[in-house]
């Protein structure tokens, strides 16, 4: 302990029943675990591959991460509630197909994006309704909507991709650069990150999310409208999936009805690697950003090192396992 700490602690006279270790400090240290892991992996990769720490590669990784990070930000709130959202990939696909259909029908890209995001919000809202007032377990509710909405994406698009949108604005959203250096999706990701950070840290709504996830009954008895909080969170998750869909569609210049399959697992992995507890009530959005970066860097590094595809899965699984074993403060 530092002298300063000792001095502080000495003055405080502890009542019986209070732990002596500064809990904020302990929590912070624990929270920074994933960041330490990320930095360690980055240093390792920088030594192993000279291509890793180049501006170009760093920007690439950041852009590659942006889609997963967007979904994972929404998923963080869902998981903070103790819930889960398996339908994000399908929501992404439906939104993406809808946007592409509108663009092809000659509508403006602003309209298309707006409708896509609204559609995402609506699908998330339906999840929320089924889960909160409907009292269906989130896992099974979103498993059902995942299947259902994948079907909707296929029906809408007749199973074929919808491609080529000759809109500069739209193609900028996924492929453009800010100040000719930072990819637009990376900027969007950082803006959304800041927003979510603010919401969770500074707003009444954020507090209610933590309270509902920590103890829904106590929150309800304290006047928190827990159903409304849940509906809003699933709606947000839908919106984030749709935004990820905008980036993907723009970047691919194509809407794929099969897009987003399996993205829910990547997003959940990012959230959990970032230290948010699947039991709800405990976690932070910064961890999610770190978790998403961790996964992205891992994918990038394995490619740069030329690790063969089959071994990549073995290594990825092992790294995730290791990371959570090292950081299993709470189950």
């Amino acid at each position, binding site marked *: 302990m530092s002298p300063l700490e000792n001095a502080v602690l000495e003055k405080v006279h502890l009542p019986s029943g209070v732990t002596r270790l500064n809990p904020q400090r302990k929590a912070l240290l624990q929270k920074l675990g994933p960041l330490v892991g990320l930095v360690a992996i980055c240093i390792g990769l920088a030594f192993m591959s000279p291509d890793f720490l180049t501006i*170009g590669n760093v920007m690439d990784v950041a852009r590659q991460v942006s889609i997963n990070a967007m979904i994972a930000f929404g998923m963080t709130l869902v998981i903070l509630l103790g819930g889960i959202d398996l339908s994000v990939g399908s929501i992404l696909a439906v939104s993406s197909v809808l946007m592409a259909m509108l663009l092809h029908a000659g509508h403006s890209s602003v309209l298309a994006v707006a409708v896509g995001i609204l559609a995402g919000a609506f699908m998330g809202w339906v999840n929320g309704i089924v889960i909160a007032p409907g009292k269906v377990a989130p896992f099974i509710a979103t498993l059902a909507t995942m299947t259902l909405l994948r079907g909707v994406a296929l029906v809408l698009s007749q199973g074929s*991709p919808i491609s080529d949108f000759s809109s500069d604005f739209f193609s900028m959203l996924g492929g453009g650069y800010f100040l000719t250096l930072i990819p637009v999706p990376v900027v969007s990701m950082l803006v959304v990150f800041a927003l979510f950070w603010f919401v969770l840290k500074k707003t009444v709504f954020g507090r209610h999310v933590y309270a509902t996830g920590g103890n829904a009954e106590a929150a309800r008895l304290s006047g928190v409208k827990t159903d409304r909080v849940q509906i809003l969170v699933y709606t947000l998750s839908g919106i984030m999936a749709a935004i990820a869909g905008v980036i993907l569609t723009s970047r691919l210049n*194509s809407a794929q009805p099969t*897009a987003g*399959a*399996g993205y829910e697992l990547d997003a959940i992995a990012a959230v959990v690697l970032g230290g948010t507890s699947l039991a709800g009530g405990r976690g932070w959005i910064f961890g999610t950003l770190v978790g998403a970066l961790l996964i992205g860097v891992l994918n990038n590094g394995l*490619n*740069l090192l030329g690790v063969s*595809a089959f071994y*990549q899965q073995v290594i990825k699984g092992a790294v995730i396992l290791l990371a959570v074993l090292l950081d299993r403060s709470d189950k």
Partner: protein
Amino acid sequence: RQGPDTRGDSTSAQPTIGLSISTLNNPFFVSLRDGAEAEAKAKGIKLITVDAQDDPAKQIAGVEDLIQKRIKVLLINPTDSDAVANVVKEAEAAGINVISLDRRVNGAEVSAHVGSDNATGGKMAAEFLLEKIADKGNVVELEGTPGSSAARERGKGFDSVIDGQPDVKVIARQPADFDRVKGLSVMENILQRNKNVQGVFAQNDEMALGAIRAIEEDGLKNVVVVGFDATADGVAAVKAGKLAGTVQQKPELIGKMGVDAAQLLIDGKPVDKEIPVPLALITQ
């Protein structure tokens, strides 16, 4: 970026090329990769393979990673023809020549395309099936994963021939997701409805092999099953007389010829824009 790599990369003596493959969860593409790797080894080229796991976004990420590795040539086997145009342009902007394998790239120029066409294969399968059932009878089509490009293209080619036939009726088009177990279950279920089936087209050999099981178990004779991909198991089934035929796309050859074309580009020699790998129909 042309010219020798001077950064002292350990392999700077060897030229490096990249292969971005749609998925390695399918023996067909595993063979394609194997063909490419064998040829690269023979030629002293360093080949880095990245697997897109059938996700266009993952494919873009993988190609970007390859660009960072300063490869000379990119061999790309698109997850979806439309979805890779942007990243192909990116690679080309970085001075990398791009060769598409098996599936084409829509919306961007590539230096060459090596492959054979899924739709043509579908047509071949249809024509062969028609011949075997003498242009009449009931036909079942087992479809691949809904929305996937192989399912779409093979189906399109097959349907374009079959749909015009007056005496041929497609009694079921059902998805079995390119999966052997599902091919079996779905065929079982279809046969419960109607045992009067003369022909089956399965959009890959895996489903065809599953369907054959169902047909055998039902004791049906003289059902003509046509598959696609000519995988090892598929070819064995043809030899055993269980599978009437399978469309061969020669994945190893596609991989090999892709690397050959890449070598030409590295050496600054001209390459043909179209390098067709002939389709073949494997029959007994």
